[in-house]
């Protein structure tokens, strides 16, 4: 018997009037809210020519802002990747009292306003904070220096790696891991050789999302940073700084750069997402 796939619903040749109307409304809304503003951004940024754009990127301020941002994002993402993979394994493969609580806690950062994030970190790690005060006496300053920004960025991007990896781990099931264990592999060996490769795409997807979020954080960082150029001035803070100094060109340039990074991150993550799903 030959089995031929027949589509359940015949493809429509021409959309009905209702469908057309819905399409126009939806796309119109997106155009006004999303597309046109972004298009204008590009126009304004490139408006004075590539030369002006390039020179605003290559100021020492801009370059150091990029470096600072990359360091901060790198540290935050590294922390959250380790946590993310570990938490995903715990939530999906292990049972322990309070598992459901952990599940809820992981999502908390998404519900917290960035300003509150900054405040919360200052209260604990600032000069007069519980931990911060103690560190201060030993000469370590967190808030208003780089580590503070790393903390703020790690806070806001915390859930992203966990939530990217966990569903894939769940769908894959632990049969492969069990097989490895019966063949004598240790827990670490199993993790490195079986678990990790199987979640690779989902992991990279989560990392890319976390990276994009970390590069673009503004609210939390604005509270905990001293905005010292070359030390604690990130790209987003630079935009704010330039706007306040009426240097529109520099602000637009940096904005375009961040926008391009965001779009790039989206493109990569979309491809990874579909690849990760196909392997399951």
């Amino acid at each position, binding site marked *: *018997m*030959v*089995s*031929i796939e*027949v*589509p359940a619903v*015949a*493809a429509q040749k021409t959309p009905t009037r209702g469908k057309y109307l819905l399409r126009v409304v939806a796309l119109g809304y997106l155009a006004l809210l999303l597309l046109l503003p972004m298009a204008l951004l590009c126009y304004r940024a490139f408006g004075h020519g590539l030369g002006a754009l390039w020179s605003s990127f290559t100021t020492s301020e801009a370059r150091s802002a990029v470096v600072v941002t990359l360091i901060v994002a790198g540290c935050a993402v590294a922390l959250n990747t380790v946590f993310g993979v570990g938490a995903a394994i715990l939530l999906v493969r292990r049972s322990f009292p309070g598992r459901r609580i952990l599940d809820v806690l992981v999502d908390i950062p998404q519900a917290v306003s960035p300003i509150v994030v900054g405040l919360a970190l200052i209260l604990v790690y600032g000069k007069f904070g519980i931990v911060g005060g103690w560190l201060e006496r030993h000469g370590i300053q967190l808030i208003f220096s780089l580590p503070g920004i790393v903390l703020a960025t790690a806070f806001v991007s915390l859930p992203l790696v966990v939530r990217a990896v966990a569903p894939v781990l769940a769908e894959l099931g632990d049969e492969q891991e069990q097989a490895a264990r019966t063949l004598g592999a240790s827990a670490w060996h199993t993790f490195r050789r079986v678990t990790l490769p199987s979640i690779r795409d989902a992991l990279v997807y989560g990392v890319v999302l976390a990276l994009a979020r970390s590069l673009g954080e503004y609210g939390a960082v604005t509270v905990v940073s001293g905005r010292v150029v070359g030390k604690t001035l990130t790209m987003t803070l630079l935009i704010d700084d330039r706007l306040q100094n009426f240097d529109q060109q520099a602000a637009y340039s940096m904005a375009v750069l961040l926008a391009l990074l965001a779009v790039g991150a989206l493109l990569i993550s979309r491809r990874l997402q579909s690849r990760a799903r196909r392997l399951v």
Partner: protein
Amino acid sequence: MSISTRNVSKRFGAFTALDDVSIDIESGSLTALVGPSGSGKSTLLRVIAGLDVADAGTVRIDEHDATHLPPQRRGVGFVFQHYAPFKHLTVYENVAFGLRVRKTPRSDVRARVAELLDLVHLEKFASRYPSQLSGGQRQRMALARALAVRPRVLLLDEPFGALDAQVRHELRLWLRRLHDEMHVTTVIVTHDQEEAMEVADEIVVLRDGRVQQVGSPDDVYDCPANDWVMSFLGPVTEFDGQLVRPHELELTTVPDDDALAAWVVRVTRVGFETRVEVDVDGKPVYAQLARDAAHLLRLAPGARVYLRHASGRAARDTPKVR
């Protein structure tokens, strides 16, 4: 309420699902559309229901041209293979759906739903949700839902396909009894020829979008229109240049002028049947005997036997194997 289609054709891209299909379904009958996957039987049903639109041809329901009517207005009841329950509604609300859409007064709805739930033996499940029912129960609910609005025609698309063999068998017989009581014109699509033979008054055999044969179960089984229909509807074996049914072959250990000599290759007992594979001049032939009969003959691999096509059976029209 009768149904008829004339020259219905339907293509999905490069694939032809229906090719010039014309059938007539008698009012009050239970007709089965049978065929393998891809034969077009589901597509034909959906075209009758209005869920798919034919590229060419007409559909008439009860003498009215229904070809361009939307499904809402065809007066057709439909039961899907996977039941399509309204997950967010209780069993009661599922069955009441069609009545509520027609703004039937609440007391009438209550009465009708109770009547139907009684009919399908789901009275105790009225306030449950479909997710809490078994497959067989969900299908009975789907049937009750379709019948609630008194359709002129009832269409079932592989209704028992997703169920266990046991449940399938029970529901099949139950459906037949229901039909005998209610006499609604019913069309059932199935790929299971045994199901079709057991349940239907009339069978339409489809292959690759074309009607191969239309007739009663006996007609299509005993007088198949071609080799393909014959092999689709039952077991076949090639004997003496003809396609015959294995159970129509007589087997003896006594030489006979009318019979062909053969060697036994394999003997398999399945339930009350014994299937014997023999070798006739290098070609395999399969015979089927009752277990006792086979036992009496003491068949074993290597034994010499003599085969004959049982007399008194109507031979097929086409003498040669294609």
